[in-house]
C-alpha cells in the first residue's frame, strides 16, 4: 500500500510540475487497465451513454477494441440526454445493477453523489496507477468536473465548450466592410467580441444581403437555450443568487436584458429560429445560410468537411463552406462549458472493478486521443495533449486555429450552475425560455422563475443550498473575472 501511495504522490507532483516525462517504470494507464482487466475476461459491462451520435464511439470503436484487448463485452445502453438523469436515478433506486459504468453530466454529480448513486473512485485510481494521467486533463475540466467534497467521482471526458463560428469570406468582404464603416463609422469587427457588436453586425448583414445569408442563427430550443442563457446572463454581469440570503436574482436587469436582446435578435435571424436545435442550426450554417453561429465544437470539424463522408455521418448535410470558417471565443469572452460528460462507476454495479478499468482505459491519454479524433465523435478535446497533438493539428488546414479556440474557451469558460437538485432549477430556466418564445413579457417570466427558484431552495433547505452555492461560486469558472 505504502509504495502505491508513494507512486500516486509522485504522479501528482509530476503532473503539477509539468514534468511530462514518465518515469521509466510507470506504465501507461491504458496498458495497466488492459492488463488488470484480463481477470474479467468473458464478462459483460453495461455502460450508459447518450443516445444517437455520442454512442457511436463505444458501439463502433472503443467497445469492440476493448473486447479485443480484454475479452470483456461492452453493452451500450443508449439514453436520450433529457432522460439520462432520470434513468440513472431510477436505476439506482431500483438497485438491479443493470448499469455498471455511467456517462454523467458534471452538473448532476453532486445530486448523484448525495443520493449515493456514484462510486468513489480514489481507491481505484490509486490501485491502478491513474493519478498521473488524470492530472493531465485540461485544468478547467480537471478542477471543476471531477470531484465532490474532495473525492473523485468521475473522469472528465468531454471538453464541451461553446465556440463562435463565423464566415471569414463574408465578414472579410471589402464591399461589406466599406458599407459597415460608412454606416457605423467603425471598422467591421472580425470577429465581434461583444454582444453589442455582434448584434449590430448580425442585423447589418441580414439587412444588407436581404437574408442571403442571415447575420446569425442560434440554438433557441429550450434545452440548449438554458445553456445559452446561463452564459450570457453571467457575461452581462448577472448573478444567480444573492450569496447571503440565497434569494434568486435571475430577474435582475442582466436577465431581462438577455431575454430582450434575444427577442431583438430573432427579428433579423432566420424565421422560425425559435425552435432551432442542434441540427437545424447546423444545416443552415453548413449550407451557407448564416454568417455566424454559436455551438459546440463538432460544428467546426464538420464545417471543415472532416469526416463527413463517413457512412454514419450521412445525416449531416454536406458542408459548402469548408475552408471559410473562422473560430473565436463567444462574445464577452466567456463561453459556457455547456454540459460535458464525465465517466463514473455506478454504486449499484455488481462489477465495479471491471467497469472502472474500462473507463480508465477510455479516459487515458492514448485512447482518449484516438476517441476525440473519431470523425463521427461528439467527444471534444479535453486533455492538454489533445490540443497540441501533431496528428490532430494536421487534420485540416485550419485545425490549429480550431484547437487554439477550443483551448482558449476551456481556459476562460463558465461552468454550468451546479447545486443540490440542479435539474429542478434548470427545468425552470428551460420553461422560461419556452415561455419567452410563446410571447410572454421577459420581466414577468423571470420574476416568476425567481420565485420558483426560491420555492425550490426553501424546500431543499436554504442553509444546505447556501453552502453548496458558496463552494460552487468559489470555483474559477463560476463567474467571469471582470
Amino acid at each position, binding site marked *: 500500500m505504502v509504495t502505491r501511495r508513494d507512486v500516486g504522490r509522485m504522479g501528482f507532483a509530476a503532473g503539477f510540475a509539468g514534468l511530462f516525462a514518465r518515469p521509466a517504470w510507470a506504465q501507461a494507464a491504458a496498458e495497466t487497465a488492459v492488463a488488470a482487466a484480463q481477470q474479467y475476461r468473458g464478462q459483460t459491462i453495461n455502460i450508459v451513454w447518450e443516445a444517437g451520435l455520442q454512442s457511436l464511439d463505444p458501439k463502433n470503436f472503443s467497445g469492440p477494441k476493448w473486447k479485443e484487448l480484454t475479452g470483456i463485452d461492452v453493452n451500450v445502453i443508449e439514453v436520450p440526454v433529457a432522460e439520462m438523469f432520470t434513468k440513472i436515478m431510477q436505476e439506482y433506486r431500483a438497485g438491479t445493477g443493470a448499469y455498471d459504468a455511467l456517462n454523467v453530466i458534471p452538473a448532476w454529480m453532486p445530486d448523484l453523489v448525495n443520493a449515493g448513486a456514484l462510486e468513489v473512485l480514489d481507491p481505484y485510481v490509486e490501485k491502478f496507477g491513474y493519478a498521473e494521467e488524470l492530472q493531465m486533463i485540461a485544468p478547467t475540466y480537471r478542477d471543476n468536473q471531477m470531484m465532490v467534497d474532495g473525492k473523485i467521482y468521475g473522469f472528465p471526458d468531454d471538453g464541451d465548450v461553446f465556440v463562435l463560428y463565423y464566415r471569414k469570406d463574408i465578414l472579410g468582404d471589402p464591399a461589406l466592410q466599406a458599407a459597415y464603416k460608412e454606416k457605423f463609422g467603425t471598422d467591421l469587427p472580425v470577429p465581434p467580441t461583444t454582444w453589442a457588436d455582434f448584434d449590430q453586425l448580425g442585423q447589418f448583414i441580414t439587412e444588407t444581403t436581404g437574408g442571403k445569408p442571415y447575420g446569425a442563427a442560434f440554438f433557441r430550443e429550450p434545452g440548449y437555450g438554458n445553456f445559452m442563457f446561463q452564459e450570457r446572463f453571467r457575461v452581462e454581469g448577472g448573478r444567480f443568487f444573492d450569496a447571503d440570503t440565497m434569494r434568486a436574482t435571475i430577474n435582475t436587469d442582466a436577465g431581462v436584458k438577455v431575454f430582450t436582446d434575444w427577442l431583438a435578435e430573432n427579428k433579423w435571424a432566420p424565421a422560425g429560429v425559435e425552435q432551432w436545435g442542434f441540427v437545424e442550426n447546423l444545416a443552415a450554417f453548413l449550407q451557407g445560410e448564416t454568417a455566424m453561429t454559436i455551438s459546440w465544437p463538432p460544428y467546426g470539424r464538420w464545417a471543415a468537411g472532416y469526416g463527413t463522408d463517413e457512412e454514419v455521418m*450521412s445525416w449531416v448535410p454536406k458542408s459548402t463552406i469548408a475552408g471559410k470558417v473562422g473560430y473565436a471565443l463567444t462574445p464577452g469572452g466567456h463561453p459556457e462549458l455547456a454540459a460535458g460528460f464525465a465517466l463514473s462507476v455506478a454504486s449499484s454495479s455488481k462489477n465495479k472493478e471491471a467497469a472502472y478499468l474500462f473507463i480508465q482505459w477510455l479516459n487515458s491519454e492514448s485512447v482518449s486521443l484516438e476517441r476525440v479524433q473519431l470523425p463521427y465523435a461528439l467527444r471534444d478535446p479535453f486533455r492538454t495533449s489533445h490540443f497540441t497533438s501533431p496528428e490532430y493539428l494536421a487534420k485540416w488546414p485550419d485545425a490549429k486555429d480550431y484547437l487554439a479556440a477550443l483551448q482558449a474557451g476551456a481556459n476562460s469558460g463558465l461552468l454550468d450552475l451546479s447545486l443540490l437538485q440542479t435539474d429542478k432549477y434548470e427545468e425552470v430556466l428551460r420553461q422560461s425560455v419556452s415561455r419567452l418564445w410563446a410571447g410572454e413579457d421577459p420581466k414577468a417570466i423571470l420574476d416568476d422563475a425567481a420565485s420558483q427558484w426560491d420555492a425550490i431552495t426553501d424546500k431543499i433547505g436554504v442553509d444546505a443550498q447556501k453552502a453548496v452555492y458558496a463552494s460552487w461560486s468559489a470555483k474559477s469558472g463560476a463567474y467571469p473575472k471582470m
Partner: protein
Amino acid sequence: MSGLPFHRRKGTRLAVRYVIACLLVVIFCFPIYWLFIISFKTPDEIFAFPPVWYPESIQFDNYKVLFKDGDAVSVLNSLILASSSTLIAMVLGTIAAYSLVRFKTGGENLAVWIISQRMMPPVAIVFPVFLLYVFFGWVDTYFGLILLYTAFALPYVIWMMRGYIEDIPLELEESALVDGCTRWEVLWKVVFPMARSGLFATAVFTFVFSWNEFLFALVLTRTEVTTYTVQVTHYFGGQSNFWAKIAAMSVLGTIPVFIAVATMQRYLVRGISMGAVKG
C-alpha cells in the same frame, strides 16, 4: 351533410360523394404517406427546402442503419411482448369470460368491476407499478412487461369474449356433457372452437393495443426489452431529430399493425367499440 335531404339527381349526388370521399382519403392518408416517404429519402432530400414530396429513387439506407445498429431489435421485442401477452390473456380471459357467462359468477357487479379496470388511467398506477417492479426485480425483463400487458389486456378480452360466448348455443355444451366430457373438455372441444372467429378477432386487437403501448414501456424498459414505441422517441431531440430514423422506425412498427388489422376487417368495428356494435 346538407346534401342528403335534398333530392338531387342521383348521378350528381354520387359524383359529389366521390369527390368528398377522395378529399377525405387524401387528408387522412397524406400524413401516413409523408411518414413512409421520409423513410425512403436521402438526408439531402429530407433537409431540402422547400420540402420535396417524393424521393428521386426509393432507397433503404435508413432501414439498413436501424438493422446495423441493432435498433431494429426493438420491433422484435415488441413482437415478443405483444404476442406472448396476447396469448396468455386470451386463454385466461376466455375461461374467465366463460365463467361469467355460464355461471353468472359474481353477477353484474363483477363484470362492471372488470370493465372499470380498463378505464383506470395509467398515470395513476404507473408510479407504484414501477416501485413494485423495482422491489421484485422485474424492471427491464420480458416477464415483467408480459405480466403487465397481460393484466392490461384482460378486461378487454373478458369483456369481448363475454359477448362472443353468449352467442354460442347452450345445447352444444349440454350434449357434450351428456357424452361424458369433463368441464375442461367442454371448454377445450366446444367453447374454444365455437368462439374461434371471436377469439381471433379479439386477439388481433389485444395484440394491437399491447403493440402500441408507450407509457409503461418508457418507464419499465432499459435496454433488454426496449419496445419500438420507446425506440422512436430516442431519436427526438438530443443532438438532433433523426428524421430518417424516426420515420423508418415508425414504419417498421406500423406495418405489422396494418397487416394485422387488414386480416380483421370484418371484426374491426366490434373490436374497437368494445363490443358495443355487433358486427
